[in-house]
């Protein structure tokens, strides 16, 4: 079973979202997602300053296997992207919940986080996906 940290929120499209102390939301892809993709070779970020709606396309992750769209788990304005992925895309595989984060959003409505799954629900969702 892939690692699913408690305290994060999860989308059905396999992004995680973490509420930071300053009220912003950090977004990445889950351990399950990076395992399914295999080695990540490129990440295409959303532009800093762009406004994203919930479930909008927010970038692309290219792995040795396939290209996959990344979706915004909550609506808001992109305030930062993880530029170290430019030279070290392998961070997504090595540390998907830490150094492999993708971008940070200033959310329009923090309550949207509650529409995502918690760790237990995501674990059950993965189990149902595999059957």
């Amino acid at each position, binding site marked *: 079973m892939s690692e699913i940290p408690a305290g994060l929120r999860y989308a059905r499209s396999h992004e995680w979202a973490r509420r930071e102390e300053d009220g912003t939301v950090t977004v990445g892809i889950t351990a399950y997602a990076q395992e399914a993709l295999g*080695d990540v070779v*490129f990440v295409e970020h959303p532009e800093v300053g762009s406004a994203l709606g919930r479930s909008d396309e927010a970038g692309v992750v*290219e792995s040795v296997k396939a290209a*996959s769209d990344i979706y915004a788990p909550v609506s808001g304005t992109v305030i930062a992207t993880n530029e170290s992925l430019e030279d070290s895309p392998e961070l997504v595989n090595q540390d998907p919940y830490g150094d492999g984060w993708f971008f940070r959003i200033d959310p329009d409505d923090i309550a949207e986080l509650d529409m995502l799954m918690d760790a237990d629900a995501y674990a059950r969702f993965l189990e149902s996906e595999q059957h």
Partner: protein
Amino acid sequence: MTEPATTDSATTDSATTDSALRRTALYAQHAAAGARLVPFAGWEMPLHYGSQLNEHHAVRGGAGMFDVSHMAIIDLAGDGCRAFLKRLVANDVDRLTAPGKALYGVMLNEAGGVIDDLIVYRRATGYRVVSNAGTRARVLDWLAAQNREGVAIAERDLAMIAVQGPEALAKFESVTGSREAAALAPFNAAEHDGWMVARTGYTGEDGVEVMLPGPDAVRLWQDLAGAGVAPIGLGARDTLRLEAGLNLYGQDMDETTSPLVAGLGWTIAWAPAGREFVGRPALEALRASGVGERLTGLVMEARGVLRHGQTVRTPVGTGVITSGIFSPTLGYSIALARVPKAARGACEVEIRGKWHPARIVKPPFVRKGSKVFE
């Protein structure tokens, strides 16, 4: 994230149900090494053992071993087998002037389409054919249906391990205690004790492919692992072969593709003109009417990955990518593509609705660890 698509991948076969999957003699080794096992051409095979990129680099920089036991090993015996192969293989097995010599070639249907690509080895008595796992049933049926020469055709239940990389021969020698591999010229093989050791491969590196009984294969695999040879999955096998400019059956060519548009014209033995191999009339008709396309290489040094099925736009018409990858050795994307014959130089590739600049080059891309195209 969208679910990774499997349709554009050479390494999975979603049409096969898990219950029917076959396992090689080395399955337990793969499982114990933590392999990600996936369905491939009816077999449960290792995709990678943790990192496909690391495995790729291990082969280019040292030595790696591949379980290729899923491939079909077919022995042909009897007085008619030379005539049989001269008729069924578009390359000419008369080029195998002595036992131990090997030849790459294609088997064609009447329309000149590629039934399979294969290696033919001449043995002390008869021949051995090694063909693809995905075409096993088709090839065996075709051989049986074409057998007018009374050839004894027997698929062998042997394992097969490829050891590839600049250190492959030294590592193989260190665990077998035999100098036989280094003594072989490229595309030559030696047989003893039920083993066939061939100086062949699918990576653009030096190395051997060893056909041997399953229990021997388990011992050899363990001994090589003990000597520091890395296990390599099908993912890296695909990126290594593409860097080496080698075709993959089912992706770069199939029964609807002429070898003349698949970069395999060099494997057709036109002389002697009187050798009536299957598909020859169709190939000659195509050659006379003019071959409009060719298989060539593409590179895209900007960010992004070329993949199977993407459209290529050139000043003289459009083409299609047949295989595309991120090249771990080069650090950017490369591909094989079928394009209009006159296309040269700059082109564009459509990736998710946008056109990206790319460049037509002559494959291979990498040989013996280094970039080789202009």
